[in-house]
C-alpha cells in the first residue's frame, strides 16, 4: 500500500493523540459502529478523566462502554446510558457527570461542530427541565427556542468499512449511524477501518465521508466484544 498523504498509520502511532483529561468523541449507536481497536488501545494506555461525547454509553462490555466501566470518563455527553447500568451507577454516586441531549439534537450538535457552526435553535424538550436547564432561549416568529450549542472534540474516533489512501470513507449498513457526523467534528479524526484500499478504488459518488475530514487511518483488528443479542 502506498501512503501518499501520510494518513495510513498504526494503532501504536496514533496512541500519542490520546491523553488524560481530553475530549473524545466516538462514532456508534448502541455499540454498533464503534471502533473496537481504538477503544481497546485507549483502554490499554490507561488514560483517565476523559470527556466522552457520543450517542450512548454502549453496554458494559461493548463499544465505548468499556471505557465507562473502567471509570476512565469524568463526563459523558450522550442521549442514553440505559444499556450500560454501570454508567447509571457512576452517575448516581457522583463519579460520572452526565449531560443528556435528545438523540437527534445531539446528532445535530455534533454535526454543527463538524461543519463549523456554533449553535442552532431547537424546540425539542423545551418544557423538560433536564433538557432546557441553563440553556439560553430565543424568540423567533412568535415561538420560543432553546439555543443548542455545537460539539467538537480534540479527537474523534470512527469506524468504517473501507478507507482509501486519502481517508475517504464508506460505512457498512447501519454501522454508519453517527460516524459521518463524528468524523467531521474532531480537531483530529482517526478512522479505524475494516479494509484499506488504493486511491481510486472507491467510487467518488459512494464516498460518505470525504478524506478531507480524516487525519489518520488505522486497520481494525475486528470487533472484540460479544453482542448483547449473542
Amino acid at each position, binding site marked *: 500500500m502506498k501512503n501518499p498523504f501520510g494518513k495510513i498509520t498504526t494503532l501504536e502511532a496514533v496512541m500519542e493523540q490520546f491523553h488524560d483529561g481530553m475530549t473524545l468523541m466516538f462514532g456508534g449507536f448502541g*455499540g454498533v459502529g464503534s471502533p473496537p481497536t481504538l477503544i481497546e488501545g485507549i483502554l490499554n494506555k490507561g488514560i483517565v478523566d476523559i470527556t466522552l461525547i457520543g450517542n450512548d454509553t454502549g453496554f458494559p462490555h461493548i463499544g465505548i462502554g468499556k471505557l465507562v466501566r473502567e471509570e476512565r470518563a469524568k463526563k459523558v455527553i450522550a*442521549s442514553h446510558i440505559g444499556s450500560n447500568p454501570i454508567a*447509571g451507577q457512576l452517575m448516581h454516586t457522583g463519579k460520572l457527570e452526565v449531560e*443528556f441531549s435528545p438523540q437527534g439534537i445531539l*446528532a445535530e450538535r455534533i454535526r454543527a461542530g463538524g461543519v463549523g457552526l456554533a449553535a442552532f435553535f431547537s424546540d425539542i424538550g423545551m418544557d423538560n427541565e433536564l433538557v432546557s436547564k441553563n440553556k439560553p432561549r430565543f424568540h423567533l416568529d412568535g415561538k420560543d427556542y432553546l439555543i443548542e450549542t455545537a460539539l467538537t472534540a480534540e479527537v474523534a474516533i470512527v469506524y468504517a468499512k473501507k478507507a482509501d489512501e486519502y481517508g475517504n470513507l464508506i460505512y457498512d449498513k447501519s454501522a454508519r449511524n453517527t460516524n459521518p*457526523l463524528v468524523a467531521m467534528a474532531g480537531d483530529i479524526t482517526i478512522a479505524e477501518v475494516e479494509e484499506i484500499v488504493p486511491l481510486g478504488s472507491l467510487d467518488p459518488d459512494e464516498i460518505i465521508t470525504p478524506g478531507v475530514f480524516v487525519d489518520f487511518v488505522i486497520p481494525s483488528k475486528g470487533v472484540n466484544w460479544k453482542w*448483547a443479542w449473542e
Partner: protein
Amino acid sequence: MGMGVEFRNQMAKRAAEEIQNGMVVNLGIGIPSLVPNHLAKETMVMFHAENGITGMGPSPAIGDEDENLCNAGGFPVTLTSGASYCDSAISFGMIRRGRVDITILGSLEVSQSGDLANWIVPGKKVPGMGGAMELAQKAKKVIVVMNHSDKYGNPKIVTSCTLPLTSAGCVDLIITELAVFMVTEEGLLLTELFTPYSLENVIEKTGCEFKVSENVREIPY
C-alpha cells in the same frame, strides 16, 4: 409484566389498523415491535429506525445476524426492498420534518390531555431520553400501546402525570389490553373495548375521567 401473548397481540393488531399503505412508521421496543406481524401482506410500510434505517424488516434467523445491521436498540434486523441507510442526523431530520407518519411506543404514564411520561423514574432509572422526545413531539401521529395498569395495579392513564414528561399533549391514541382511547380537545374518548372487558372494568382501572363514544366498537379476544 407477565402479560399474556394474546393481550400483547391484540394490542399490536389494533395498532396495526392505524397503518396505511405507504406510511413511514417508527416502532418502540416491546409490544410495538409485534405490530408488523399484524399488517396485511400487501401493505407497503417503511419502518424507520433512529440510528439511520428506513425500511427495516423482521429479525433475522438465529445465525444470520449481521453485527452492522441493527435497530436503534442494538438488536439485529433485516431490510425490506427499497430500504436505505442514512446518518443519525438525517434520520432525526425525517422525524422533525414531519415525514414520520406514526410512532408507536410504550409508556409509563399518559395523562388525559395526552401528556407522555415514558423515559424517567426519578431516583431510580434515569437512562436518558434517547430519541423519545423527538418522536413524541414530531411524529404526525403518536400511538401509545401499554398495559392499563402498572405492576402494582395502579392506573397508568391518569389525570396528570406524576413522572417527568417526555412531551406534553403529544399522544393521539392510547391502546391498552382493555380499551382504546382517542385524545381529544375535551380529554379522553373511549372508542373501543376489548371484550369481555366492560366499560365498568375500564372505569375502575383508569385514573381519570373519560368520555365514551356513542358507538363503542367491541373487539373480542
